[in-house]
C-alpha cells in the first residue's frame, strides 16, 4: 500500500514510551469505548500507487472523453496552453494554504492582486474579490450583498440567468429569505414585465413552474439580476434592467461571461453594480464541473461588504511593496455570525490559473478567442439551420452559443450524435423552451475547426433523418 507516513515501528514505540503509554490505542482513551469502532473500517486495505493509477485509469476510460465538444452552458472547452498548465501546477501554488502569513505568501498574494485587477478590468468595474466557488455561488453572494445593502429581500431575476445557478440561489434563499421572482424570456430576451403585486413567488416555486405571468412593479427591490450573454447565448439590451434597478432602488447584478466580455459591452458599461461570472473558461479544464471559479466584481462603494478574500497592496517594514489580505473584518474568522459571507476556502488556485491564462492571452488574445469562438458559432448555426427541421429558438443576436429546436428530444439527439463522436450540446430545460423537449443549446470555442463543425452538422442531419 502507498503510505505517506514516515514513522518506523521503533520510532512509534519510542514516542509512545516518551508519552508513557503502551500502544497507539491508548492515544484514544479519551474517546468513550462505547462509540469506538471495533474491527476497523469496513473497507479494503490500501493499495499501491500503480494499483491506484490502474483503477483510476479504468474509471477514466469508462468516460467518453474524445467527443468533440459542442456543449457549453457555463462550461467551455477552450484551449489551455502548456505554459499555463505548467505554471499553475507549480507546487508552491498548489500546496500552500490561504496566505495568512504574507511574509512567505507573496507568490499567491501578488498573483491574486493581478487576478483582481484583470477581472475588474474585464468586468468594467472597480474591484473584484479573490474568487468564490463557482458561478452559482458568485450569484448567491452577489444577491446576498445586494439584499443586505438595500435592506429589501425582493429579487427579480431573468430566466436568462443559468438555470442551475438560479436553482442554487433558490436553495440558499431558504436560509436567507430572499423573495425571488422569475422574469421570463421572450424570443431570447428578458421580459421585465411586472408580476401582480404581492405575487412574489418564492424562488423554489418559480424554478419549478414556468415563469409566471407579468405583474406590477414593486416600490422597492434588493436586486435585479440579468445575464449577458444569457443562457441561450443571446445578447440583450440591459438598459431596461438598469432603469428597473434605478426605479426600485435595487442593485443591478449582471452575470457575464469573461470570454465574451472582451468583445461585448462589459457589465460596467451597462451600469452594473455587481458582476458575477464563471471563470472556468479562463484556463481551467472542464473537469466534469469542478473545481471552477466564481467571479465577483463590484463598484468601489461596496467594497466593505464584499464577500470573500481581498488582497491589497501595502509595504513591509522596510518600505518594500508587499501584498496582504485586507478588510479581513468582513470575514467569518473575525466577524463570525456577522460576517458578510461564510466563505473560507475558496478557489484560489483557479484564480491564479485565470491570471496566468489572461496573461498568456493578453487583450488581443482574449478578444481573438472570443471572436474565433463566435465565428465558429456563426458557422455552426448556419450549417445546422440549413438542415430540414432545425430552427433557431430565438431571433436575438447570439455570440458564441445558440439554441435550436430540432424536432427530436434533445437527450435522444445527443445520444445519437455521440455515436459519431460529437457531444452535441446541452438539452434545454422546458422552462426555457416553451415546454418543448427538443431545445438544444450549442456552444463553440476557438478550438472547433471547420471540419469538426461540418462533421457535426452532418452527424446531426443523419440523426434527424
Amino acid at each position, binding site marked *: 500500500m502507498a503510505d505517506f507516513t514516515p514513522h518506523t515501528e521503533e520510532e512509534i514505540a519510542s514516542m509512545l514510551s516518551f508519552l508513557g503509554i503502551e500502544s497507539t490505542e491508548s492515544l484514544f482513551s479519551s474517546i468513550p469505548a462505547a462509540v469506538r469502532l471495533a474491527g476497523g473500517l469496513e473497507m479494503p486495505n490500501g493499495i499501491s500507487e500503480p494499483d491506484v493509477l490502474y483503477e483510476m485509469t479504468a474509471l477514466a476510460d469508462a468516460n467518453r472523453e474524445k467527443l468533440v465538444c459542442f456543449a457549453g452552458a457555463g462550461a467551455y472547452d477552450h484551449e489551455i496552453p502548456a505554459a499555463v498548465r505548467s505554471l499553475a501546477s507549480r507546487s508552491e501554488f498548489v500546496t500552500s494554504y490561504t496566505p495568512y502569513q504574507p511574509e512567505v505568501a507573496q507568490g499567491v498574494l501578488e498573483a491574486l492582486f493581478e487576478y483582481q485587477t484583470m477581472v475588474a*478590468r474585464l468586468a468594467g468595474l472597480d474591484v473584484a474579490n479573490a*474568487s468564490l466557488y463557482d458561478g452559482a455561488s458568485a450569484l448567491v453572494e452577489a444577491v446576498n450583498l445586494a439584499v443586505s445593502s438595500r435592506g429589501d429581500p425582493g429579487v427579480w431575476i431573468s430566466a436568462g440567468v443559468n438555470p442551475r445557478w438560479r436553482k442554487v440561489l433558490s436553495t440558499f434563499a431558504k*436560509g436567507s429569505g430572499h423573495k425571488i421572482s422569475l422574469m421570463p424570456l421572450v424570443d431570447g430576451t428578458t421580459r421585465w414585465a411586472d408580476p401582480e403585486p404581492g405575487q412574489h413567488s418564492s424562488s423554489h416555486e418559480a424554478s419549478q413552474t414556468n415563469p409566471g405571468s407579468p405583474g406590477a412593479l414593486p416600490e422597492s427591490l434588493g436586486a435585479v439580476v440579468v445575464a449577458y450573454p444569457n443562457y441561450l447565448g443571446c445578447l440583450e439590451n440591459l438598459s431596461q434592467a438598469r432603469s428597473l434597478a434605478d426605479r426600485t432602488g435595487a442593485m443591478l447584478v449582471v452575470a457575464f461571461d469573461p470570454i465574451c466580455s472582451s468583445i461585448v459591452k462589459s457589465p460596467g458599461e451597462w451600469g452594473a453594480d455587481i458582476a458575477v461570472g464563471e471563470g472556468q473558461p479562463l484556463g481551467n479544464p*472542464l473537469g466534469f464541473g469542478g473545481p*471552477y471559479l466564481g467571479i465577483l466584481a463590484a463598484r468601489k462603494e461596496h467594497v466593505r461588504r464584499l464577500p470573500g478574500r481581498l488582497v491589497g*497592496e501595502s509595504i513591509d517594514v522596510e518600505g518594500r511593496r508587499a501584498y496582504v489580505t485586507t478588510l479581513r473584518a468582513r470575514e467569518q474568522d473575525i466577524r463570525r455570525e456577522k460576517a458578510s459571507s461564510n466563505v473560507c476556502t475558496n*478557489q484560489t*488556485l483557479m484564480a491564479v490559473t485565470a491570471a496566468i491564462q489572461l496573461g498568456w492571452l493578453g487583450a488581443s488574445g482574449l478578444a481573438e478567442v472570443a471572436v474565433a469562438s463566435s465565428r465558429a458559432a456563426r458557422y455552426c448555426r448556419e450549417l445546422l439551420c440549413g438542415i430540414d427541421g432545425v430552427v433557431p429558438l430565438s431571433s436575438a443576436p447570439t455570440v458564441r452559443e445558440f439554441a435550436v429546436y430540432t424536432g427530436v428530444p434533445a437527450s435522444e439527439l445527443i445520444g445519437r450524435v455521440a455515436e459519431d463522436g460529437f457531444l452535441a450540446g446541452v438539452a434545454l430545460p422546458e422552462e426555457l423552451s416553451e415546454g418543448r423537449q427538443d431545445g438544444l443549446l450549442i456552444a463553440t470555442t476557438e478550438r472547433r*475547426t471547420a471540419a469538426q463543425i461540418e462533421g457535426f452538422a452532418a452527424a446531426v442531419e443523419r440523426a434527424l433523418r
Partner: protein
Amino acid sequence: METGSSTVGNDGSNSFTGSSLKEGAGIHYGHGSTSALGGAPGGRAASAPLMGKLFEPTLLELSHPGRRAWSLRTTGVPMYPTEELIPPEHTRRQPLGLPEVSERDLVAHFTRLSHRQFSVDLGAYPLGSCTMKYNPKLCDEVVALPGLRDIHPAAPAQLTQGWLQLLCNLESALCTITGMSAATLQPAAGAAGELTGLLLIRAWHEAHGASRRRILVPDSAHGTNPASVSLGGYEVTTVPSDSRGCVDIDALHASLGQDVAGMMLTNPNTLGLFEESIVDIAAAVHDCGGLLYYDGANLNAILGVVRPGDMGFDIVHLNLHKTFATPHGGGGPGAGPVAVSERLAPFLPGPRPVRNEDGSYGWEIPSSSIGRIHSWHGNALVLARAYAYILASGGDGLRRIAELAVLNANWLRKRLNGVFEIPFDRPNMHEVVVSASSLKRAHGLRALDVAKRLLEEGFHSPTVYFPLTVDEALMIEPTETESPQTLAALADALENIVMQAEANGPDAAREAPRTTPVRRVDETRAARRLRLTADMEPG
C-alpha cells in the same frame, strides 16, 4: 499604466533606474514612468529580482503594448467580420487593459512568484485546524487523466459512467468512514457543507412541522460555523467551554429548548480535545428534537477510530482538502461533502449520482431535496483526488493516519510543556493549542511574534489567536506526514525562540522575520489606503 499610482519605494539596491532609457537607446519601458516603482518597467521580466530580494513587478507592469504570448489553432472557419458578429450597440468600447507579455516573461514572472511562496512541498506547515499534510503527487497524475479532466459536466450519464461510478464509490467510502448512510458531494468547501447542513436541518424541521430558530455553537467553534448559521437563517447561541476546554454541559442544558433546531460541533474540538461527553451531548440535543451537526474539519484525528455517526451525529461535513490530502491551492479549491443519517437522506441536494439496478450509473433527485447547491456536481477533480487517496490508504491506512497524527501532536504537547503554557494539558488528539501568554507578560512578546520568528527557521507558523478561548493561542497541527525528526526540529526551534527572548530580550522576535521575501507587512496601511487593483488610487 499602473506605475504612476504606486505608493511604494524600493529597497534601495535597485540598479535599474536606467541610463539605457536616458540614452535614447531605443528601448521604452511600458506605459508609465519607471522611477515611481523603482524601475519596474514593462517587459523587464527576465531580470530576476529573486536574489536581490527586490519585489517582483506585477504582470501589468511587465506589460508592453503589442507583445504577445498567444497563438491559436488554425480552424478554417470562415472569417466573418467582427462587425457582423456583434451588433454595434453591444460592442465593447472600454479598453480591456490586459497585460501584454511574451510567454518567456510570463513564465519567468510566475516562476519567480512561486519562489516567493512557502508551501507544504517546501517545508512543515503546522497550521492548526488546517491539516496541512503531504499531498501525494500520485493524485496530480490522476486528475491529469484526460478521461477525467476533459469531460464536460453536462455530458449525459451514458457518456460519463466512469465519473458516476467514481462519485458513487467515493460517496460510499465517505459514508463508511463517517458512519452515515448517504452523502452529497456538491459542496465546494467546508463552509458550503455547513450551510448545506443547516438547510437540511431546516428542511427536516419544516417537513416535521416544527419551526425552530436557534442553533447552538460552542465558543471554540471555527468562524464558518456561526457565519453559516446566520446564512441558514438561524440565530447563533454560543455555548461556553468548561475549564477542561470542552462543551460546558450545564451551559448546554441551559441553552437547549424547543426552539433549538440543532447544534454544530467539531470533535475533537478546535483545542484538539475530544469531547468526552459526546454521547450525552447527542442525547441532550436529540431529546429536545434538535439535530446534531458534525464539523468534519478535524476528522483526521479519528479516522477508523470512531465515527461521527456512531457518536450520534445526524449530519457531517468533511473537508477533503484537509483529511483527504487534496492540496489547498493557496486558499482553495477544496471540497466539503455532507453525509447524513438515513432519515435525512431524502432531503439531500440533487441530482445525486446513483447506481441503477442494472449496474449502470445515473442521476437522481432525492424525494424532498433541498435543491442544488453547486453549478454542477461539486469540485469533481478534487473529489477524484480524495478518492484516489482513499484507495491508496485503505481502511488500514486511514486508521494509521489518525494514530500517527495524534501521536505526533501528543509528542509535541509533551515536548513543548514548559516551553509554553499549555492551557489544557492532557492527552490531545491531532493538534495542540499552546499559549504565549507568559511571553507576553514577561517580555511583551505576542503569539504573532513567535509565529513570525518561526518563519525565519523555515517552518510555516502555527495558527495564531484561534481558538478565541485561549489567550495568545498558538495552534499546532503537525499531521501524520511529518517525521519525528521534523517534530523535534520544530520543537527545538520554538524552544530556542523562547530561550532567545529570555536571554537577549524580545527584539529578535519582534523584528522577525528578516530572511523572508518581504518582512512584516503593514496591514493597517493596506486597509486604510486601500489598493485592491492596479487601477485603484490608494484612498
